[in-house]
């Protein structure tokens, strides 16, 4: 590739300037960037809370913040990260950008709904930020009753409304993806020629559509209970606080798969591209996504093992939770088999993908620990659980997100980032992450409970290690923010397909034109044809 490549004269970024051309856009690519800006903001807000939490936990006595402030810190960290970063992260940014490109369409099926979903997201974010500024909320991100409905004196209602509202943006995104994947695929793009990223987003959208409404009604019930004292979750009136837990986890367990399924889809794109091989066992990887989405709806009861659930339900939920390991393992084995005898290049996205596979495996296997009844009773509400789900959500979902962001950055921006800095920061994130969260497995197993701002002195060494890791991790996240922004203006021009990947999104210019393709493409080839000579390129 010569050094004289130029940006295409006309692309979605220079198709109209000024604030109106962005805030009223219906172009899925611009909406993806709006989402990218918004979720990055919430990521760093949520991260700031984590920084204060880890600073507090450097010493065994609660000295930096009061216990009440600490309760608010971990609540706001959870709410921001889960509902305003992790859930929209890959679907709303990379998904929004890529779904129409990957199906060869000009846009999503409902561009106005897509823009509306961003405004709904921002409105929900405003409610939650208001709750934060008005003094925060201290229930934990799980809003367990009766504390959240009767006892807590903090801003539960604005936070609940913020989550309720934001849920509709998830629903609209999921609805748009389902309809687009069903109805907008370009001629020749059969289901089994689709990139696996689309399969995983399809499975994610199923959860968006089936799970989010239940969260919405649950949040309404919480608000109604607080405002009117109806008694649904109040034992004094014959209500059942555990019913809330059922309703909440019916959404919030599948929500974990909302976070990790898109990351799996990203890894399924990166691994073949950097190994120059077709994905091993395509249909198995595709159906594994759907299987995870379906099984994900049948396991919520494993959050209630210590909530007085009957032993028979508990055993069934335990067994069903074990079953999720099967499609998850299918994916891990298939990625590994794809790498076997591939010609692997160790570029930044591949580093993230490999990081994902390793960390997801640890997170997933410790998930089996907590799905096992006796072990769960031992580690419930300890740092073991914290470490487990951070291995999935940070080690899994965010690794996948970062990998995808780097992989498609040249397509999104038309420019290349600094590969050296990117590799360094990928390594920093990996090391910082493990230093932060691995000690928490040990802490939890030794019995340190979550959600306290003080702890016995014998836990200090491990806590200091964890806090040191968090500071490294924080630096690791700041470096990409800098070099990616820098590359927007000063990065080398990427050209349409800098790494020679296959897939429709690489067959148009970088950045793509507003209508994505000059002519509707017709697909006559299978997915991931890295072993076949490349003939199908657009100039």
């Amino acid at each position: 590739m010569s050094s004289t490549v130029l940006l295409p004269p006309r692309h979605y970024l220079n198709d109209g300037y000024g604030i109106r051309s962005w805030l009223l856009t219906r172009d899925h690519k611009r909406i993806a960037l709006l989402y990218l800006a918004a979720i990055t903001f919430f990521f760093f807000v949520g991260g700031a809370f984590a920084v204060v939490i880890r600073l507090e936990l450097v010493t065994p006595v609660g000295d930096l913040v009061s216990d009440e402030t600490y309760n608010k810190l971990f609540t706001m960290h959870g709410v921001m990260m889960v509902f305003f970063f992790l859930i929209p992260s890959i679907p709303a940014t990379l998904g929004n950008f890529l779904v129409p490109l990957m199906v060869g369409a000009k846009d999503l099926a409902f561009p106005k709904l897509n823009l509306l979903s961003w405004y709904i997201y921002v409105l929900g974010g405003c409610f939650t930020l208001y709750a934060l500024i008005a003094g925060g909320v201290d229930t934990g991100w799980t809003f367990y009753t009766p504390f959240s409905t009767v006892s807590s004196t903090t801003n539960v209602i604005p936070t609940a409304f913020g989550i309720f509202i934001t849920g509709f943006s998830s629903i609209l995104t999921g609805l748009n993806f389902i309809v687009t994947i069903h109805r907008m695929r370009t001629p020749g793009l059969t289901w089994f020629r689709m990139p696996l990223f689309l399969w995983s987003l399809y499975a994610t959208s199923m959860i968006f559509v089936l799970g989010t409404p239940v969260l919405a009604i649950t949040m309404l019930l919480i608000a109604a209970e607080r405002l009117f004292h109806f008694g649904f979750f109040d034992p004094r009136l014959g209500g059942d606080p555990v019913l809330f837990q059922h309703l909440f986890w019916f959404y919030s367990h599948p929500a974990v798969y909302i976070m990790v399924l898109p990351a799996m889809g990203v890894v399924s794109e990166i691994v073949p591209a950097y190994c120059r091989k077709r994905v091993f066992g395509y249909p198995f990887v595709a159906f594994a996504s759907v299987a995870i989405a379906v099984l994900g709806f049948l396991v919520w009861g494993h959050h209630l093992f210590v909530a007085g659930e009957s032993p028979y339900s508990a055993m069934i939920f335990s067994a069903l939770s074990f079953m999720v390991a099967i499609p998850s393992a299918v994916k891990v084995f298939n990625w590994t088999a794809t790498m076997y005898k591939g010609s692997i290049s160790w570029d930044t996205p591949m580093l993230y993908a490999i990081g994902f596979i390793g960390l997801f495996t640890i997170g997933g296997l410790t998930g089996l620990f907590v799905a096992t009844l006796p072990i769960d009773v031992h580690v419930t509400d300890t740092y073991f659980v914290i470490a487990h789900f951070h291995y999935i959500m940070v080690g899994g979902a965010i690794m996948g997100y970062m990998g995808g962001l780097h992989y498609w950055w040249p397509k999104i921006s038309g420019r290349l980032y600094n590969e050296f800095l990117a590799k360094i920061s990928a390594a920093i994130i990996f090391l910082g992450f493990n230093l932060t969260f691995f000690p928490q497995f040990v802490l939890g197993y030794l019995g340190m409970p979550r959600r306290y701002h003080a702890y016995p002195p014998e836990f200090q060494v491990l806590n200091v290690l964890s806090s040191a890791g968090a500071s490294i991790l924080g630096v690791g996240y700041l470096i990409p923010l800098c070099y990616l922004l820098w590359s927007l203006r000063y990065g080398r021009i990427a050209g349409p397909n800098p790494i020679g990947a296959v897939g429709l999104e690489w067959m148009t210019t970088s950045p793509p034109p507003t209508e994505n393709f000059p002519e509707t493409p017709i697909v006559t080839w299978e997915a991931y044809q890295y072993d076949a000579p490349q003939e199908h390129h657009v100039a």
Partner: protein
Amino acid sequence: MLPEAVPHRASAALAHQFDTAGQQKEAATLGMWVFLVTEILFFGGLFATYLVYRNWYPEAFTTGSREMLVWAGTTNTFVLITSSLTMALAVHAAQLGQRRLLMFFLVVTMALGCVFLGIKGFEYYTEYLEHHVPGFGLPFHAEQSQHEQIFFSLYFMMTGIHALHMIIGLGIMSTMLWWSYRGIITTEYTNPIEVSGLYWHFVDIVWIFLFPLLYLIGRHVHG
């Protein structure tokens, strides 16, 4: 180079992201069906709550049902079913391009929707007079006060959210009426009427479940 190309194209009512009117129509219909699935799960949370407490407190729920105005609920059921019929006739008129008939049926549908809300409002007022409204710091009286409060709370949540859907439906129908008047709806472009109809029928069906659950089941028990 790409091997072949399908020409892009369009009529006035075809949005830029679609290739054909058929594709646009299929997308709109599927989109509404998917949305209705989310609605089923939204109401599903309430139905699940109902199921749990009905099992726990059957007597309180029976007593609660007996205090409902069954004539009002029955009338409303007929009103809504009739409005579904007029909605279906509106869709039919749109497909035949009979604009005046379409507007007539839309107006009748909206009128029936308003009758439903009026009767519902009257019921709410009666509940208020009988001190059956929980919350708001109002006095609450019932034979089995604690558990019946849960029944009435569910009654107001479920019918209230249903009524909210009716109000949204009236907003949609007003828009459809305006679009029909403006001639935006043509025989080539009936999607908005059809998907609005799907929504309207769905809201009716929710009532078809709410009516027996809240008014009828258990009325005859214990004389």
